[in-house]
């Protein structure tokens, strides 16, 4: 049995939990999902929609706010009672905080930031990226079960979770946590002044540069963005000119983005811009100047007038 640890905050499920469930389902074997916290029950019904054997709800006053001690105490108990062969977690900041401690507490192998799993000799081999993605390593966990595995965010698709024909059964767990064993005393959580637009979460981005010539032409890019379901972004000169707000600036001092698709319209590709978007999976550049540095990093390049190409592209997409 694979035990997936879902993550919630204030009764709202972290999307990456679905990815971990999808990973567990694709790994094979029965899957249970456990969710911890004071309001864990609030997300249990959501989780029960997935094709899983059971949803376990671990509510406890000591788990009201996340603490590494509280989570490790709770999960160690749960792992002891449920005896999973694998504990799967999304590789979130919270997981990064407590997973090593949990592994040490259980004295079991931990493999972090995995991007895939393959069957191997009746067991499983886990795939991790190394050297910034230049190499992939196959990692075999050593020692007895349960092995603890965290999955890289984005490595599995949340919408690939298999849904059950009926809601999975939900079971409340009763935990004994000695409050004095929780040494961290968290303050109330706070958010840094959030940018109105969080481009780093966008899957697709259409970015405009100086080649757009005037603010009145932005509509050309906006239409393409709408057709692609993409966010609109820009290089520095555009934001400097005030044509788009600063929070849409991509670059070394703007936002750093890594969408699946980055369409650069009339962006020459100054290095400050490149460092902000070089991690994009697929880069499409449209520029009049064949020498534009943007073509050096682009997967697809179109040398030509964006005012001819972009409307045609938008039409084809909408067609």
């Amino acid at each position: 049995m694979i035990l997936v640890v879902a993550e919630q905050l204030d009764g709202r499920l972290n999307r990456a939990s679905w990815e971990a469930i999808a990973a567990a389902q694709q790994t094979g074997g029965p899957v249970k999902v456990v969710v911890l916290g004071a309001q864990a029950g609030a997300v249990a019904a959501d989780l029960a929609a997935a094709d899983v054997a059971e949803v376990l709800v671990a509510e406890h006053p000591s788990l009201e706010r996340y603490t590494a001690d509280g989570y490790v105490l709770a999960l160690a108990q749960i792992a002891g009672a449920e005896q999973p062969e694998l504990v799967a977690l999304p590789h979130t900041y919270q997981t990064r905080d407590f997973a090593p401690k949990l592994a040490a507490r259980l004295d079991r192998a931990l493999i972090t930031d995995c991007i895939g799993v393959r069957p191997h000799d009746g067991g499983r081999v886990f795939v991790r990226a190394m050297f910034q993605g230049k190499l992939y390593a196959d990692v075999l966990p050593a020692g007895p079960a349960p092995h603890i595995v965290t999955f890289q965010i984005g490595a599995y698709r949340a919408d690939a979770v298999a849904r059950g024909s009926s809601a999975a059964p939900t079971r409340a767990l009763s935990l004994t946590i000695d409050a004095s064993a929780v040494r961290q005393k968290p303050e109330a959580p706070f958010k840094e002044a959030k940018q109105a637009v969080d481009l780093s979460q966008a899957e697709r981005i259409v970015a405009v540069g100086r080649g757009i010539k005037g603010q009145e032409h932005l509509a050309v890019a906006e239409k393409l963005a709408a057709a692609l379901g993409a966010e609109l972004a820009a290089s520095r000169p555009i934001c400097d000119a005030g044509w788009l707000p600063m929070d849409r600036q991509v670059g070394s001092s703007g936002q750093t983005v890594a969408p699946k698709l980055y369409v650069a319209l009339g962006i020459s590709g100054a290095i400050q811009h490149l460092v902000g978007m070089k991690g994009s999976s697929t880069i499409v550049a449209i520029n009049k100047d064949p020498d534009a540095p943007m073509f050096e990093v682009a997967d697809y390049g179109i040398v030509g007038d964006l005012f001819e190409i972009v409307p045609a592209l938008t039409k084809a997409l909408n067609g």
Partner: protein
Amino acid sequence: MIEILALWLLLLIFGGSFVAQVARRVRLVAAAPNNFSLDLLGFRIRRFVTDVVFQRKTIVERPFVGLAHAFVFWGFVAFAGFTATEFLKGLGIVDLTGTAWFHAYRLALAPFAVAALAGIVFLVIRRGIVRPVALGTHVSIESIVIGLFIAILMVTFLLDFRLEEGTPAARVNWWAHACVILAFLSLIPASKHLHLVLSPVTVFLKSPVLGTVPNLDFEKEEVGTEAIKDLKSKQVLDALTCVECGRCQVNCPAWESDKALNPKTLILQTKDALLAGSRDAKMVDVFDPGVLWQCTTCGACENQCPVGIEHLPLIIGARRGLVSNGEAPDYLGNVYNHMERRGNIWGLGYDQRQKFVESAGLEIFAAAKHEWLIWLGCAGAFEADFQKSLRSLFAILSAHGVRFGVLAKERCTGDVAKRTGNEYLFQELATQNIADLKAAGVTKILTSCPHCLKTIGDDYRRFGYEVQVVHSAVMVAELTRALRATDIESEVVTFHDPCYLGRYAGRTGEPRELLGRFGGELTEPARNRENPFCCGAGGGLLFEEKEKGTRISDVRFGQLRATGAGTIVTACPFCSIMLKGSQASAQSEIQVVDLMTFVNGRLQRMPGRTPGSP
């Protein structure tokens, strides 16, 4: 007899006040960790003659003001013997005033007195009525009083020629002169006029190399200047010496672009904190918020200062104090990460450098085979525009039979780390690079990046690493010296001197030589040669795109555009990035090109020549 006693009494009071006030300041200097250095003594002596005796720095930037000041200064020096002789007599010790040499000396002083009087009247009018911005927003009453004192001294001296010796009028005149001197004496130490006493020492002790910021010694657990008590002796001396002339201020690109940073204010705030005895005051609290991160380390303040103040060690020292406590701005956190993990400021993968090395047909340096090592730098390794310029350089070098290679792997020299106060990271990068350079047997380095030039050529010396480092402009100027371009159409260009080439390295002639040789008709922008206006990229600010006030690069671009030239030539990858950014924002048609691209382009257009051939 009564007069003698009275003079003794007054001397004890006013002289004692002078001594007590000066002693307090000397103790402040003595209490600070000693960092006085007398290396390159010959240079220091020559500089003392030009800058103190002949007032070079004072005169060069502001000729009229400087000359007026020089008259007053020379007057002071000339009068020293006269005043001493008169006081020896007045105190009843010895009377030398009747000697023939004294009469001759007194006569010789008359023109000095007239010049000093003219000078001080000019300066008082400037300060009190014209009120230039560099001198601050309010008129310093104390400076006016001291100006009047100097005027009275000169007038009473000159008046003495007209008065018969021994008459009551002559005595009153004599006493007026003596009292003003005594009052002056007690006013000096608490005012900016202490520079009279300190600036010759400060100038002598100033580092011979601009922007000298000695390494931190981690063995001794040094972390930089966190608080006033961490200031070194020269820095304390600097603060006490400041004459508040504001040359640093009006030359500062941050101040000129409406930012809060004013180098003069930094020095005066340091002085105030020292005199207030606030030894534990944190530098970041002593200064105005944010100013420490507005400095591009262009060096204008330090270079223009006539009294020997070194601003860069103060600013970078305080940055070190912040960085060691994890208080660097967020954008630098990313850059530090990139330098630590990827060995370059952009955080790009080294395979991209390899691609460039291969596509440019570069050989890996071998001491037996190559004379020169080309140091690509972060820009050379990764920045597409600058790589074009490097290809031009390679073409020129190859055509002249220069044998060169590159290191198989380079790390950033650590310039950004050094200038922003991340000393630990800097030393890590520096020691690794030095080990690689030594292992490869490199003796001559050629670079197109003025920041690499400064870092390898100067900062690496402090690790005991001595190597010849040359900027491409200097090398190519030499290589092409025999060429005479004919049949080449001329083009109006302007040249932006990179701070680290023009001001730090003093290489202002070679770029102009090259432009002239290859048909560039130079029109100089405001602020050129060894006092250029920064592009805004130095000191880690390349990565701070959310500048307060106006962008420094926009201000500079405006100055360059105002020349009317169709092309801006520069010789630094950072200047090029910044100016191109401003050019794009301004939607201007002016081209920004690197010097090497300009030269090679011209060579290619010369009839009957293969690219770069002699």
